[in-house]
């Protein structure tokens, strides 16, 4: 059972907590900005109004100004907008401010200052935002706004924002927990699937819900890897079965031969003869193992680095030259078209091995008196296709694809010795080059084409 401390230490919980914290931080920054902007805007609005009032009233004549100020003060029922007119000697001519604060005279813009009101007279100075403007005759008119309003506004906005932050925090935490649970659920599903694969259930796959989500894309990639792995394991399993099956025949023959030699041989010479034939059986089995290993080596593309520009016309002629005496010995005519040099990018040794296998196969299945024909088709010095045709029994249409798989031997080919691996080897080499191949009816006989153009 996983303890709470361990759960809290998991990556999913940590990431979720980090996201929740980020959301909280975002709310706090947002509220701070709203607070700062609102307060700043309120102060600017007060300042603007003070400056406008002050400059407008300062332009009035002395009598009109005093009357206007007294009227304004009388109308200010809440006593939040103090105002007064001061004579050049500093005594009050009109309004409800008792004394002119000297610091006001040093500023042309509104400042925060304590103002003593005339009614009620015993109260301490009120902190106000105020401005003094000179008037005709040398006096000053003063306008103020009680700062209590601004302080209250700040308090109001602050509280409102705090009220917003609390549910935002709660939402962030709930969101974080949901996120964590969801992530943990997905990881749990993946872990179970991986555990199943580890137990040998190679067909198990991870769930994929969408093609855009990165997690689903990762799951798709893992599934593709599992597909490849399953294919490789099945291939390996099939290879093992094939080898066991194919080796059983030579081993049974070998056993029978040794047994017969052991029981029947009456002289060292006879025993030696049995021994020699047994050695041939062993060599046959070993050559099959070598061929299978070679097939694997080519399939794994271990030699892909040796690609060079190869003259395919020359290669086909060289391969035919190797088999010419064998063809003569069997009474088969081996013909090679004398083509001009034609090149393509290939691994010389591997392609030679492929062409040799095709000629070898063609010779094996062509009866005496028949013919095997090797051709290169090229254009302007570029090799297009290699063709090896024979006048043997041919390969049935239904069997042509199967012939490219290892150990498959056509119905017409059973009486001829071989491993059933030659064409599979050619197909593997063709695949490694990115070329393609086709088995056709040569009427009579069979023709195999290797197309030297990358698919």
């Amino acid at each position, binding site marked *: 059972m996983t303890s709470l401390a361990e759960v809290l230490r998991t990556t999913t919980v940590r990431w979720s907590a980090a996201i929740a914290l980020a959301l909280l931080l975002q709310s706090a920054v947002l509220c701070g900005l709203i607070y700062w902007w609102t307060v700043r805007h309120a102060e600017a609005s007060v300042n603007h109004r003070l400056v406008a009032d002050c400059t407008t009233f300062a332009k009035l004549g002395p009598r009109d100004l005093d009357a206007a100020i007294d009227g304004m003060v009388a109308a200010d029922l809440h006593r939040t907008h103090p105002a007064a007119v001061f004579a050049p000697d500093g005594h009050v001519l009109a309004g409800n401010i008792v004394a002119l604060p000297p610091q006001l005279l040093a500023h042309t813009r509104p400042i925060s200052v304590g103002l003593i009101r005339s009614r009620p007279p015993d109260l301490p100075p009120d902190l106000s935002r105020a401005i003094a403007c000179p008037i005709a005759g040398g006096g000053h008119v003063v306008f103020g706004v009680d700062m209590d309003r601004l302080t209250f506004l700040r308090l109001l906005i602050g509280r409102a924002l705090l009220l917003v932050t609390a549910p935002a925090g709660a939402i962030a935490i709930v969101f974080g927990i949901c996120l964590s649970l969801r992530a943990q659920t997905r990881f749990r599903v993946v872990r179970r699937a991986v555990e199943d694969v580890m137990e040998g259930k190679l067909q198990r796959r991870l769930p994929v819900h969408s093609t855009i989500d990165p997690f689903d894309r990762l799951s798709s990639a893992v599934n593709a890897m599992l597909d490849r792995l399953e294919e490789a394991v099945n291939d390996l399993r099939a290879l093992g079965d094939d080898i066991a099956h194919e080796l059983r025949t030579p081993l049974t023959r070998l056993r029978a031969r040794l047994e017969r030699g052991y029981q029947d041989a009456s002289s060292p010479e006879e025993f030696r003869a049995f021994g020699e034939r047994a050695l041939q059986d062993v060599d046959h089995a070993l050559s099959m193992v070598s061929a299978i290993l070679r097939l694997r080596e080519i399939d794994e593309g271990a*030699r892909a680095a040796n690609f060079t520009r190869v003259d395919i016309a020359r290669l086909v002629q060289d391969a035919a030259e190797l088999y010419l005496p064998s063809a003569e010995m069997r009474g088969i005519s081996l013909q090679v078209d004398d083509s001009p040099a034609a090149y393509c990018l290939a691994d010389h040794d591997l392609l030679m091995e492929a062409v040799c296998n095709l000629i070898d196969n063609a010779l*094996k299945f062509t009866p005496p008196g028949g013919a095997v024909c090797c051709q290169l088709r090229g254009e302007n010095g570029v090799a297009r296709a290699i063709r090896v045709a024979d006048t043997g029994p041919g390969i049935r249409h239904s069997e042509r694809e199967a012939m490219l798989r290892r150990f498959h031997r056509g119905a017409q080919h059973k009486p001829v010795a071989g491993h059933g691996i030659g064409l599979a080897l050619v197909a593997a080499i063709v695949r490694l080059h990115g070329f393609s191949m086709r088995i056709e009816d040569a009427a009579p006989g069979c023709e195999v084409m290797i197309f030297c153009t990358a698919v």
Partner: protein
Amino acid sequence: MPGRRAVIYRSAGQKDLANVLLIEDDVEIAEEIALELERFGHAVITVDSGTNGLEAARRDFDVLIVDRLLPGLEGLDVIKTIRREGIRTPAIVISALGRLDDRVHGLRAGGDDYLPKPFALIELVARLEAVLRRPAETRETLLRLGPLEIDLLSRRAARSGRRLDLNPRELDLLEYFLRRPGDIVTRSMLLQDVWGYRFEPRSNVVDVHMSKLRRKVDLPDETPLFRSVRGQGYRLDQPR
């Protein structure tokens, strides 16, 4: 099987004995290899671990046969160590690891040849003789062995004055044998060195070429110069 003794196949005076150090931990394989090499006149000392092999390899041997997977110290490490110490004794690596990458790795570690298991014992003998002879490769253009001779400049061959009608490939084959008188030459050596191919054909193409060459060199009434060696290779002998 203690007490088994090699039947000597090699005729006396054909070749000097080679001192062979065999480093192989599988006792039965080691015994078979040693018996086969002794049959061909070589003296074999066998050790069964990498560490003992390294110690022994520092002594005076003509050739080393080293298995790759050994207890104590890996075969390739043995070769790398002696090469670092400046010991140039030719070494043949034998191993069950037979992929191309493994072979390249073995040769890069300082091996002179690489023979994947399973192999025919005669193949090992042939490779060993080839490795031993390697530094003495002659650059002569007129090669002779008993009644046989080849003029490599005029590309002509003759036996006891009888002109041999050989095609270019047969001439190359004969030259290969004349440069290795008395040595066993296997099919894979011919395919690799004369044709330059590194794959095993699925049929007996090399044998067919050899049989044509032999028919031209050894007429029915002449002493055969070519010999088949246990179905795996050939040897060109000087007639006694």
